[in-house]
């Protein structure tokens, strides 16, 4: 059934296929968002708060963020905490490129949001969104561990709504 303006209604097969695709993607995203294994990339003081985030009081495990040994090969999420200098930026990208897709990035602290204290320095990356796609930013110098929980909640919401940077850039396998 075709109308004059080129719009066509989907047939039965397409409806079933679209519904199934949507359903499978929902299930996949549910799984991805609830098992975010982080890779810790701590270069300075924000890393101390990141340790607290993984410890008992602010329990990251209840959100599925398990600190299971630092290897980029088994991680979904990289927590970049601490000032990134221009020399370190290459090492950071080197680690980031070893992570399997889909991969998500959380920028922790003022230095990674905008350069922070060192914003007019000659040797600081003023916000890591200049060098890699960032899903969630945590401001603060350093941020409280509770704000990590908030950032993970935001990231989970983005993944469930198919809005994370990994999905937008297309380097993620859809059903």
């Amino acid at each position: 059934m075709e109308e004059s303006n080129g719009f066509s209604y989907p047939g039965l097969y397409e409806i079933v296929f679209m519904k199934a695709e949507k359903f499978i993607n929902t299930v996949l995203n549910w799984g991805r968002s609830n098992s975010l294994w982080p890779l810790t990339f701590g270069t300075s003081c924000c890393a101390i708060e990141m340790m607290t985030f993984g410890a008992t009081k602010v329990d990251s495990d209840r959100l599925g963020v398990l600190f299971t040994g630092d290897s980029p090969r088994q991680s979904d999420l990289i927590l970049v905490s601490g000032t990134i200098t221009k020399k370190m930026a290459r090492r950071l990208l080197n680690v980031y490129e070893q992570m399997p897709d889909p991969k998500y990035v959380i920028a922790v602290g003022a230095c990674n949001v905008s350069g922070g204290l060192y914003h007019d320095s000659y040797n600081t990356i003023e916000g890591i969104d200049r060098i890699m796609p960032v899903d969630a930013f945590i401001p603060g110098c350093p941020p409280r561990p509770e704000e990590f929980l908030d950032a993970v909640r935001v990231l989970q919401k983005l993944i469930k709504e198919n809005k994370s940077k990994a999905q937008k850039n297309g380097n993620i396998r859809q059903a």
Partner: protein
Amino acid sequence: MVTLDKLKSGFKGELEVLTEEPKLSIIRIKNKKLIKKVAWQIKEEFDILYALSVVDYTPVFELNYIFSNYRNADSLVLKVNIDEKDFSIDSITDTFNSANWEEREAYDLFGIKFNGHPDLRRILLPEDWPGHPLRKDFKVDDEIRNWTGLDLKF
């Protein structure tokens, strides 16, 4: 100090003693070509070079070699001036091993060439960094601030 007396008698006219105290002496040599010989003399009493600092009094740059020893923690500061016309000095790496990285740092941040250094590369900044940032004539402009040295695809 024994070494200081030796230096004073050995380098007459070239060496100027600014401070002479039991724990800290400060000397200055006028000719930078003597640095290797002076360092060799200093090695007799002082074991380590624990800092090399550079001060930018444009057009003259002042190098401060700070020596110490393990026996009684005496210190000796050796000052040498170099000017912008001949922006190089002999390396003392073969006398004091710790001078290796100190001189690389001075090369990295001030652009001073050390003749005879075994491995004169940048130590703190990336290899392809433009300029030497601790010099007074270095300006941090937008081009420097936006420089990453990466070609990014995302």
